């Protein structure tokens, strides 16, 4: 009887452990996917932010930045991939292609050529 009770304890504990572990594995997979989404968001933001810094009028997918009505050199864009062409992603290394279509929607502003200063411009 005592052996049966012991087996029961061990079985319950082991079952709980295995169940928890499988849940954690699942959680890990989800975290990894989230990391990919985050990396894709970071990538899109960095590319378009850099293009804005360099003074380019268009984003990486050739769509224009939104021009601020008060400060014309202030541009804004969203990292939301909905409605945008992601064909440019295929030109990236393979590790950067993942989850670009699931990037988080961030509203980003960038000032055009903030480090370029000249006598004939502000």
């Amino acid at each position, binding site marked *: 009887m*005592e*052996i049966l*009770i*012991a*087996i029961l*304890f*061990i079985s*319950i*504990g*082991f079952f*709980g*452990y295995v169940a*928890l*572990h499988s849940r*954690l594995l699942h*959680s*890990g997979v989800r*975290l990894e996917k*989230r*990391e990919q989404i*985050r*990396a894709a*968001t*970071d*990538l899109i*933001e*960095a*590319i378009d*932010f*850099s*293009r804005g*810094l*360099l*003074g*380019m*009028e268009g984003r990486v997918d050739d769509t224009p930045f939104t021009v*601020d009505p*008060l*400060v*014309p*050199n*202030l541009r*804004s864009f969203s990292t939301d991939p909905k409605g945008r062409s992601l064909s440019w992603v295929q030109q990236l290394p393979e590790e*950067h292609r993942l989850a670009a279509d699931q990037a*988080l929607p*961030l*509203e*980003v*502003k*960038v*000032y055009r050529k*903030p*480090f370029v*200063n*000249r*006598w*004939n*411009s*502000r």
Partner: protein
Amino acid sequence: MRKPRGNVMLTALFVSVFLFFLSVALLYSNRQDIALSLSMEHQLKAEAAARSVAMEAFGQLREFGEIRRNVPTEPVPGVTARMQLVRTPAQENRGELLLLQVRATSGVVSSYLTFHLEESFLAEPEGQTSKVMLFPGGEESGAAYGDLVWTQLETSLPGGLQANGGPAFRAETVDTTSADQPAFRDNIPLFVPATGELFAFGPALSVIPAPTEQTKLQWLKLNGEQFDWVEIPYPFDLSGKAPEFEPPVTVLDWTIPGQGWSNASVQGVGDQLLTHTWRDPQPSAGSVEEIQDTLVTIPSTAPGPAKDWSGGGAPSEWFVLRGAVAPLKNDLYAHAWHYLYRPYSGGAVATPTALNGPVLTRWPCILKYTTEEGVWEKSWAPLDSSGDVSTDVVPDPGILLAGSEGSLFGVTVGERRLLTMTGQNEVDVGEVVPNGQLFLYRNQPYIYDPAEAQLGFRSLTDGSYLGFQTLPDRVPGVAGMLADFPQFQSLGIDEAGVLDLSSEGAIELPPRKRQVMLPPYLLNYQVADGAPIQTEGRNLWTLLDIEAVGEESIDPLWSTEWYKANKMEGGQAIARFDGDRWHILPNGLNNFLSRNRIDPPPEPPPDDPPPGNDLNLPPGASNFVVADYPGLPGLVPKYTIIAVEQDPFKFLNE
């Protein structure tokens, strides 16, 4: 038999407890993973929000010089942001900075971003603020208004402009030998040596030689948005009425031996005409014998191109501009000759001498022209209407300075003693002025000697130098300006830093240090050859040569090859001294040096402005002048990012 069973139970309990704690450990580590993942996502959002807010605030500062629209407090859904502007006082070789600080918080993660901004003004923002920096360059003339942006002008600006808190003036020496000669109808006395009697004959026309050259003046007037040149009339309109004599008439041509005389007289002696000149206020000769060698025969010819200014027997005076001019706000001071013609009054004299006759006196003076009223007036004139001269001090016509407190400064001819001229005819003779360009700064005389270009400007008051000590003597080896933002060509994906639980319970991310390492360079400054020097109030503008010196790195970390490969070329920059520190215009020293240190993108973006905009110095910068016109836009500072950092900071009111 019961002891083994107890062992089995104990083992089972131990395994169960072990699995329990193992599960707790797994759960805890999973929570950490989730927290890390969440914090990284918060970090992503917080950083994006901080960058956006900083960019929006910087954009407004750069465009308008001020924050006109509140920056968003929730730039990204779920992320709060706060911004503050903090001024940091000047420290040693670093001037005052404006810190644009943004903190964005997403969840428990806060991201910090600070732009170190250098502030550049065309002039000190106090007092009169409607300044414009004019760049004379003929058809390529330009102007930088209060916003420090160069634009091309439609009006052509020649060199040699001057201004001092008012409009720009221009002085030009023109040949006037063909101008009408001043002439006076007069009765010339005739002295009879045998009897000592004095008679008069006439009328005769005394013709004074026209000046060989005059100073022609113009001032630059602002009409709406257009600059126009306005001619300044000569001190007194010399186009008097035409001669009214019936020819033939006796014409007496006065002679002027060189430029040195100050008095002249003419009279007849027997059948001869006598002329004599002298510098003393009173005649030195008293007999015909003393001046016999100056006798000339009386000519009798038709009048030449002369204008009759006879004043009905009263003394006549007129002025001829010469030499240097000095502007002060809307007024212009100018060296001039003061002419005074005293006709022969006739009648009996107590003791007739050979020198009784009409007297022409010429003496230096300084005139003032007021652009608002368009009139000339005497500012400093030792010669009075009676012909007396209150001082024999003769200023050098090549130098004239106007102090803001009403004093005029110059130097004596030859010895170059400093002259301080006040009132109508008072003058104070000071110390000998060394060789070099004399100028006033804050009403104190300074001298610039090209041999002391590296030392700066020497005060004649205390001998101290207004040098370049407040400018950095070296370029630091670490420059983190561009690397904090990824460039398209060197794109990198951010990685999260190490988490840290702060004392306030919020997770703060340590700053990511990404800096460009370059060899340090020693800098040398000196006044550029032929640089304009202009002052007004606390402002002093000039042109500096800035270069890196030395052939080998002062830091042994860098090889000579590295040192040379990254050495900036240097060049000329317009600099402004504000009374305490120097400022390199228009975007500061850091930007001036960065121009040489950091390569531009290999291909210009397609929307880049047309060629010609990459101006190190605008055309005509070697002759720039800063003028002041009411109605022009006020001063707007230029803000230049000189550093970006992500270190945490405290808000002032926290």
